[in-house]
């Protein structure tokens, strides 16, 4: 059974390239992707997760205001009794921040996994398979159809 993941760019951020690529990668890997697109509010993430009985929520942020945009996000999820893995990825802090520190900060906010902007889609896919307990058989079955591999 395919897992459903919610995908979106939080806040007023309009960077569309990253989630477009991620959407494609996740769909090709067999996930049901609900792509909320750019400029998505916390409420829209929560509503979509409920409405689609989602297995995970993936939040993207590239304009440097992720911390403000995500404040209180996990409280909202909890108050709607949503207990599911949440990932965040992108440029998560403005300036020369130490990455480990940034990662820990977002983990403390409640995110299951935190990725930087250099992350390959495959890393997110591998993490989802692990966190959602997708079996090897399922993965086999969901082998990319449309993504060709040059051999």
């Amino acid at each position, binding site marked *: 059974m395919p897992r459903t993941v919610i995908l979106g760019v939080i806040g007023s951020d*309009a960077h*569309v*390239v*990253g989630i*477009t*690529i*991620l*959407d*494609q*990668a996740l769909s090709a890997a067999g996930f049901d992707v609900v*792509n909320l*697109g*750019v*400029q998505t509010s916390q409420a829209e993430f929560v509503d979509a997760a409920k409405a689609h009985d989602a297995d995970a929520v993936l939040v993207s942020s590239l304009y440097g205001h992720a911390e403000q945009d995500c404040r209180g996000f996990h409280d909202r999820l909890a108050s709607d009794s949503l207990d599911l893995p949440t990932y965040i990825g992108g440029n998560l802090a403005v300036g020369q921040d130490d990455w480990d520190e940034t990662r820990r900060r977002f983990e403390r906010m409640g995110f299951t996994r935190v990725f930087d902007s250099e992350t*390959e*889609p495959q890393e997110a896919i591998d993490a989802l398979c692990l966190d959602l307990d997708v079996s090897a058989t399922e993965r086999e079955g969901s082998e990319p159809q*449309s*993504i*060709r*591999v*040059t051999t």
Partner: protein
Amino acid sequence: MVRDEQLTESELGRIAESLRDDWPTAQAVDFEESVEYHGSLPDEKRFAHVLESADKPLLQPRAGVPRLDKQVELLTHLWEEGGADLLPTTIDSYTRDNEYAKAQEGLDEARESGEDTLNGFPAVNHGVDGCRELVERVPGPIEVRHGTPDARLLAMVTFAGGFQSFEGGPISYNIPYTKSRSLAETIEHWQFVDRLTGLYTEFGVRINREPFGPLTGTLVPPSIAIAIGVVEGLLAATQGVKSLTLGYGQVGNLVQDVAALRALRALGEEYLPDDVTVTTVFHEWMGGFPPDEARANGVISLGGATAAFARPDKVITKSPQEFRGVPTMEANAAGLRTTRQLIDMLIEQDVTIDGIDEEQAFIERSARSLLDSVVSLGDGDVAQGTLRAFETGALDVPFAPSQSAKGAVLPARDDKGRVRILEFGELALDDEIREIHRTHLDARAKTEGRACSFRMVADDVDAISDGRLIGRPKEGWT
């Protein structure tokens, strides 16, 4: 249900009436008086006349500031110091969202503080008289450039205000610009704009219309850009538009860019009615710019060189300060002059590059396939066909924020830097065409010793700002 049919005069009147309360300046719009006003403008300010009678590519920058005096100053500088042939007026973001009250606040603040608190010229707020003052005080023909999905009031005011060219279209100002605007509604809104243009045209005021060719500005495959431009042209022609400028944004590969501009002109002339005069506009690179003026000048120069080879009717120039947002007027003028130098040094050389015909034929075949699918999905009605095509993904735009587009298409560059399609989604291209794209991308993958992948796409998106064309793997690749 929106259909590709000409609005009746009574519908046009009814809509115009309904818009009159949106902002006080709308009250001053008087069609007949405006036609008379346009008649008073000299030939050198008649946009379509200047554009259609030019014998080499005309240059046009982008520029807009909130205050009238400053806008006159800015445009005069670009004309005198930049050598612009055509002038723009870029509209502010609030106006694009039809937030005229907020635009007014910004304009008032700008007037009080002397600071530019809006990112463009709020033409609706300046009203008919303000626009006419601008048109009269600047030295050349002038176009409204904006990004407004519902530009009906903007068109009413600026046309009455003496502007004779208007950028945009129902697809090109929706799909790349908005997240959740209904495409059907946007088509209706642009039918009004185009019908108003048509009415002016019938009364002797030849207003030029220009669909926004570059779309998302990010590796848009030429066939998609061309198909959408022609569709917007067809919708405009139905409403009586006679002067139409189809656009295309540079992808950076010489052969593909020249081929695409030729295909755009050829298909435009083929698909549009004979009484529509089709011109073409080439936008210098609309993607990410290098964060360095020296390298940015290189990108701009490649645009100028491409224009010299392809000879579009018009070139929209970039400035070396592109990466940091709105340029100073000096940098904006510099972009014009750099472009001009390349065009003037190259255009008489009559350079012929190999392989353009083949690439053009491939682009035309693909664009034709997309266009035919729009027509057939609408049972002959282009408006309905457009809606179905975007719903099904038969027509799609890469990296579009809009929920009206499938967003299933992913582009990537091939081994020569031409933009090909990696992910097609439901795009109305047959297996043979798809196979050609795949073959090109496989050749690149082989060169790089990696699989065709999302990573390639991401690398390509950043490549030009990183100082190259193709997003080659950063390490371990020779």
